[in-house]
């Protein structure tokens, strides 16, 4: 104390997230999980380029076109209706880069014009089948059999003659959509209510905690199938129901964190400084209590994917969307007849996804909570 140490400029310390990232990078299984997560999400985003009955890029009648990219436009309803609106106003000239391939093709499919003179060259997707496309030539339900190398079904077809691999690739979209949107709903509801309960305390806390307890008391899976059975089994309903049933964990987590943070010295200081409750809540409490949510989200997405595939397995899935659980559901009728491909492959996809998210969640937890590292 008597002698001042020489002044050394402290090195700029890493931020919270940088530190977590550095720790996560040393966590082998966590990183494996992260790669799996990125892989699945990438597959979901690029599904039309991976499995489609249109070329990724082609030279057709002297023009370079990307019919596969048009799948995004075609399959996204708001786009489609907007395009039709604009077409009726005759504004669509040059506005949509991928518009109206069908008009150009004279009602033929891209596969039909494949060998025509109009098509100079084309790069085809890995799997040349659309997930909902019925292949009349394929032997139904036979793994690995088809009509030669180009049109072969690598993982076989399902009982309606649709390509299993293509359905699995597009199944990523449903899995990720349900996982992420459902968790988004759960997080929004859970964090909002949890923050309110923890911050305001008193009767707000009492009421919200009771409500949470009530929701938690119901067997969630049973509640979800009940609600889905009564509503239309659409992907939107499935996401909403899973989200609105599974927020309780988030609520409890964030409420506990907020209660902890509220008692800390800097919050006492904030109150003493007369900072408005809103600022206290959003500037100080929320950022400091939100971290554990990320871990819960990683596990939660895995859980939501599992729930969606379980629902599809029980026949409550969205019939218009290819889903992994639904393929297993189809395969269930044939397991005792030795037709295993419908069961094995999508199951592996679900398993890999769950493992990926769980590993990533665990890695994140280990990186965030040093106490739990052994």
């Amino acid at each position, binding site marked *: 104390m008597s002698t001042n140490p020489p002044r050394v400029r402290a090195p700029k310390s890493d931020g919270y997230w940088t530190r977590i990232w550095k720790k996560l990078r040393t966590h082998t299984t966590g990183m494996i999980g992260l790669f799996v997560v990125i892989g699945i999400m990438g597959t979901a985003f690029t599904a039309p380029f991976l499995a489609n009955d249109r070329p990724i890029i082609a030279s057709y009648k002297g023009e370079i076109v990307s019919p596969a990219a048009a799948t995004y436009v075609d399959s996204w309803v708001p786009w489609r209706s907007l395009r039709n609106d604009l077409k009726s106003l005759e504004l669509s000239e040059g506005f949509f880069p991928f518009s109206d391939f069908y008009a150009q093709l004279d009602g033929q499919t891209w596969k039909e014009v494949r060998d025509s003179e109009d098509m100079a060259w084309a790069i085809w997707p890995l799997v040349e089948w659309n997930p909902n496309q019925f292949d009349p030539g394929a032997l139904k339900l036979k793994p690995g059999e088809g009509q030669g190398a180009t049109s072969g079904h690598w993982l076989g077809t399902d009982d309606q003659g649709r390509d299993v691999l293509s359905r699995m690739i597009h199944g990523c979209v449903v899995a990720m959509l349900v996982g992420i949107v459902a968790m988004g709903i759960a997080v929004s509801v859970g964090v909002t209510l949890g923050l309110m309960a923890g911050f305001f305390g008193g009767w707000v806390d009492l009421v919200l905690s009771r409500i949470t307890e*009530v929701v938690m*008391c119901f067997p969630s899976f049973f509640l979800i199938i009940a609600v889905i059975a009564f509503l239309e089994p659409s992907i939107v309903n499935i996401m909403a129901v899973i989200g609105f049933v599974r927020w309780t964990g988030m609520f409890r987590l964030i409420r506990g964190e907020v209660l902890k943070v509220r008692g800390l010295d800097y919050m006492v200081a904030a109150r003493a400084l007369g900072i408005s409750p809103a600022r206290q809540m959003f500037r100080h409490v929320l950022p400091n209590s939100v971290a554990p949510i990320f871990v819960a989200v990683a596990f939660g997405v895995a859980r939501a994917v599992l729930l969606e595939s379980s629902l599809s397995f029980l026949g409550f899935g969205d019939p218009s969307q290819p889903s992994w659980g639904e393929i297993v559901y189809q395969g269930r009728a044939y397991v005792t007849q030795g037709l295993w491909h419908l069961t094995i492959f999508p199951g592996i996809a679900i398993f890999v996804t*769950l493992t990926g998210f769980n590993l990533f969640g665990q890695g994140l937890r280990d990186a965030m909570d040093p106490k739990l590292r052994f």
Partner: protein
Amino acid sequence: MLAYLLKRLLAMVPTLLGITFVTFLIVNLAPGDPVATAFGSDSGGGPSAEGGGAEQDRLADAIKAKKKLLGMVTEDRTLHVWVPPASGEDLRPMEQTERVGEFVGWARSLDMAGDSLAVGSDTGELLRMGLDGEVQQTLAGHDDPIWVVRLATDGRLLSSDTGGAIKLWSPDGAELAVRPATGRPVRSLRFHPDGTRAYVASEDGSILELSLPELTELRRFEGHVSGVYSLALDQAGTTLWSGGYDRTLREWSLESGSLTREREGMGAAINDLALSTDGKTLAAASDDRRIRLVSLDDFDAKAAELTGHFKPVTRVAWLGSRLVSGSIDQTVRVWDTRAGTEVFRSNQEVGRVNGLVVSGDTLVTASNGWVEVPVPLRYLRWLGRILTLDFDRSFIDDQPVMDKIAKALPVTVGLNVIALTLIYLISIPLGVYAAVKRGSLFDHVSSVILFVLYSIPNFWLATLLIMFFSSRQNFDWFPSVGLISDNSENLSSLQYLWDGFMHLVLPITVMVYAGFASLSRYARTSLLETIGEDYIRTARAKGLSEKVVVIKHAFRNSLITIVTLIGNLLPAMIGGSVIVEYIFSINGMGKLGFDAILARDYPLIMAITTFSAFLTLVGILVSDLLYTVVDPRVTAD
């Protein structure tokens, strides 16, 4: 301890109420008419959407019966007589409701002359009654539901049914004339004041003038483009007004037989018309929940509107200068037409008002028999039934719901007890061993394996197990359907046990594997946390052997978290058993619930959700109590 228990139970009351509320919501606020959808029909039935075949009627009756079973409706087979206060003060609301004794069928139509009532029913019965409820005369009636009856002042009676048949009856009950069925329901009937003619409004849009007593067609008033629902005549018998589904009000001259005036913009279908006693105002009851008062002096002027009913108004009548109305919203209301305000509203104890007549000071209403119970009251009844564990009968096979649950619950609980025991017996030693040998090969390998197990979807594993161990293609070792073979009666007791065991292997495997993973991770983590505590270091420093340290000091303390996990495992029981029981065709709670959902068997769904939620609460309570038992630091306060 007892005080603590009481306090805990008391704290659960709001949660219990919440649970009952949610199960209540499932049936009562499901989109559409849940009971109707359970029966594959969504015909709720508006006032004008009636008719249909006998099959549909039976279906509607069945739906109503189920709703009664669920406490959504009660039956009201009485006619209501409303007596205004004797004081004669004009604007006082009616104070007294008197009920006439039980009526046989469900009254669909009603008329009154003097103190004699004529009532037609859904079943085609036709009666004359006194205001005291005494049946004076039973007439031969109709084959179809009687929708309109009309009493003349001389005691003659006109009646018509949904088939379009019209009958005229003499005062002593003899059938004077019959007009055969046309297939189109008759919506309104009126006597001409001179008693020689009658007017008939029909669903086909025509208005007929019939001679009495022959019931032959004299004239036909054409103009309405769709069904005519209501007619009104003036006192002198010179003018006829009509209204119907085409939203127009038309005035016809009875002398010339031609249309004199027409008024559009009546909002919706006009269900009833009533001419005021001074003959200057026409009240029109409309499907758009309003009553419009049309001035006859200024026919096209904007009509005054009486608003208040929240469902279509079916009947209106004048009671002196006041207007009385009945509606599908199950209320009878009295209006002060000058001020345009409601002066009286009955509570919702009458059903949908089908008939409403005034004679002198007395008002009589007939409702369709079913009274929708108000939601709060419904909830209270539901609470009462939960308290008495009376969940009524299943929609599907009429078995009492409690019997079904009593059969299924032991199966699920039994399976789960076996599974939980196995989980605890295997995973705790595994977790403890992994924690003690932390960082060893065993620790790493076991944690990887458990993690993989944890991520396997249970329906997939179940399907794979059936595929590999229960099919002819691979190994046909274990049966995959049910808990016992069909021929189990013929087996000796030892074989019987063996058979049961073989049936259990696959389902129990599926139930157990994921539990291993999470529980042994918990066991490992909590033991490691305990080992990090100071008192373990003290114990080690004392020179205790590692075995004593781990088992006596660390393990017992780490048990606290593991024990409390039971509370979390219980809610997963029924939800988790859905898939296992569905795949292996085991008749437990999960399959029962799943089948109930598929069949929309609401009593069963409500009972199962309530039951499982209660079980969960009990689980939480048990784990809290265990907490105090295991950890002496936590006192029971």
